[in-house]
């Protein structure tokens, strides 16, 4: 990083003797250095976090139309970080779908680096994902550049129930609870957080969560869903898909 130094500091007087900066000049130097970095002192703040579902029509990759009668999640904690999610996570459709399998990423698994912790909410929440919006609580955080967040799913897991229909076949299902063994990391949340009022909305994309479920492959049964079946496997992979979760800042 290049910092511009006031010329008075570096100049020599005509006698060739270095001129020592005054106390006032030192203060100015410090101030200039500070502002030249574009930095501001991080200050503590709180902001609300709410949870909402998204997804619209729920149609799986294998062509099943899903109607949910229950969608619940037991959330444990939300944490915010400075590190941005590499654009491998951005599901930006292109003309050729094969070209956006991986659009951009560090050339190595594990390319996501959380960076500095910026905020956290440790209050557990049982959320009904069929409700338009559920308040989670107040996040304790600091001002600064936010790049991502992670969500811990608590022991109650994520559980969906409803029916899936394809052609003339209808399957009633209940996934039972699935709790990912690790926090769902690398959830996109980019915002330059200052002291302005606003809130974060955590959107849970139910379409992505059910997209891999093939209700023709339910193993020993769909209600409750056989936890060794490919359909359950698809459900679990959907829950763990960090693109199914997204944070956005909402100003009032």
């Amino acid at each position, binding site marked *: 990083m290049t910092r511009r130094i006031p010329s008075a500091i570096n100049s020599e007087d005509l006698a*060739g003797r270095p001129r020592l900066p005054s106390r006032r000049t030192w203060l100015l130097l410090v101030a200039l250095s500070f502002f030249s970095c574009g930095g501001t002192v991080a200050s503590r703040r709180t902001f609300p976090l709410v949870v909402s579902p998204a997804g619209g029509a729920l149609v799986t*990759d294998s062509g099943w139309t899903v109607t949910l009668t229950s969608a619940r999640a037991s959330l444990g904690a939300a944490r915010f970080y400075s590190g941005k*999610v*590499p654009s*491998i*996570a951005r*599901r930006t459709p292109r003309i050729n*779908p*094969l*070209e*956006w*399998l*991986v*659009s*951009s*990423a*560090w*050339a*190595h*698994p*594990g*390319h*996501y680096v959380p960076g500095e912790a910026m905020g956290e909410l440790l209050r557990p929440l049982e959320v009904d994902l069929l409700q338009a919006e559920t308040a989670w609580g107040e996040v304790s955080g600091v001002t600064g550049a936010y790049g991502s967040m992670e969500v811990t799913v608590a022991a109650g897991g994520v559980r969906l129930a409803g029916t899936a229909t394809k052609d003339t076949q209808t399957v009633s299902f209940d996934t039972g609870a699935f709790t990912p*063994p690790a926090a769902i990391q*690398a959830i996109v949340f980019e915002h330059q957080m200052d002291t302005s009022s606003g809130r974060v909305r955590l959107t849970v994309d139910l379409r*992505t969560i059910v*997209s*891999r479920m*093939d209700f023709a*492959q339910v193993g020993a049964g769909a209600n409750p869903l056989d936890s060794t079946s*490919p*359909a359950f*496997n*698809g459900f*679990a*992979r*959907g829950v*763990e*898909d*960090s*693109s*199914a979760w997204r944070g956005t800042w909402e100003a009032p």
Partner: protein
Amino acid sequence: MKRLGWLMVLLLAAGCGPGVGTLSVTTWGEAYIEDGIPVDSAQVTGFVDGWTVKYERFLVVLGEFSLAKKTGEQGPKQQAAGIVNLVKPGPVELFSWKDVPAAKWDRVSYGIGPAKSSATGIGAIDASDVERMKTGGLAVYVEGSATKNGTSKRFAWGFANDTLYDECTNMDYGDGVTIPTGGQEVVQLTIHGDHFFYDDLESPEAKLRFQALADADADADGAITLDELAAVQLTSLPLGQYGTGSAGSVKSLKDFIGALVRTIGHYRGEGECVSKAR
């Protein structure tokens, strides 16, 4: 008098301008490609499920090497791509440039893309392999075998992925490369052959596995084809393996390998670049 001396120094410096240096660009597949990928052990990272892999061909089309600065200034760019077989021992020099402006070129990029007619074979590579890449429009071609407890599976996979490796950096050398005045610098475009077999696209805990690929040999003829990999949905594999992180569009083992092939390009050993699909 002293001031006059300083003035002369300044005038001389202004008249000289920046110097030049030499840059040699090489590529290397390291031991994983030359010797093979072993079983995981305390001494070396390898397959955790007991398989070993030996490559017989590891053909890569390397081109578009470019020096630039983050300020936007563009330096020299590679004109024609080179095709190399990284199974042959030792690093291969792709090309060298004399009279590269001495500077810190902090935005270095290169491409691994489909072979065009202008591409040439470099180093110890068979003419038939060069032709294979050109006629197939391939960027990467790997051929070899995997072995475990007397069972052997062959694979021969070609990929036409067009990938730009941009903003290359290395922990030891920093961003890009610095060309010293009158000096010579070497940049190695390192290819990591183990990446084909990672079991996760995002987790830093990703491990090398082959069992799922071996099991994909549906006709049990001993050869694993890309079509057979396409028939294996990730939902048929154990949870905790072949995680896709946020790349939700990766559904099959073929998709998965196709995503991993975009991660083989590295920079000066363990250095990394931002991999961009094109």
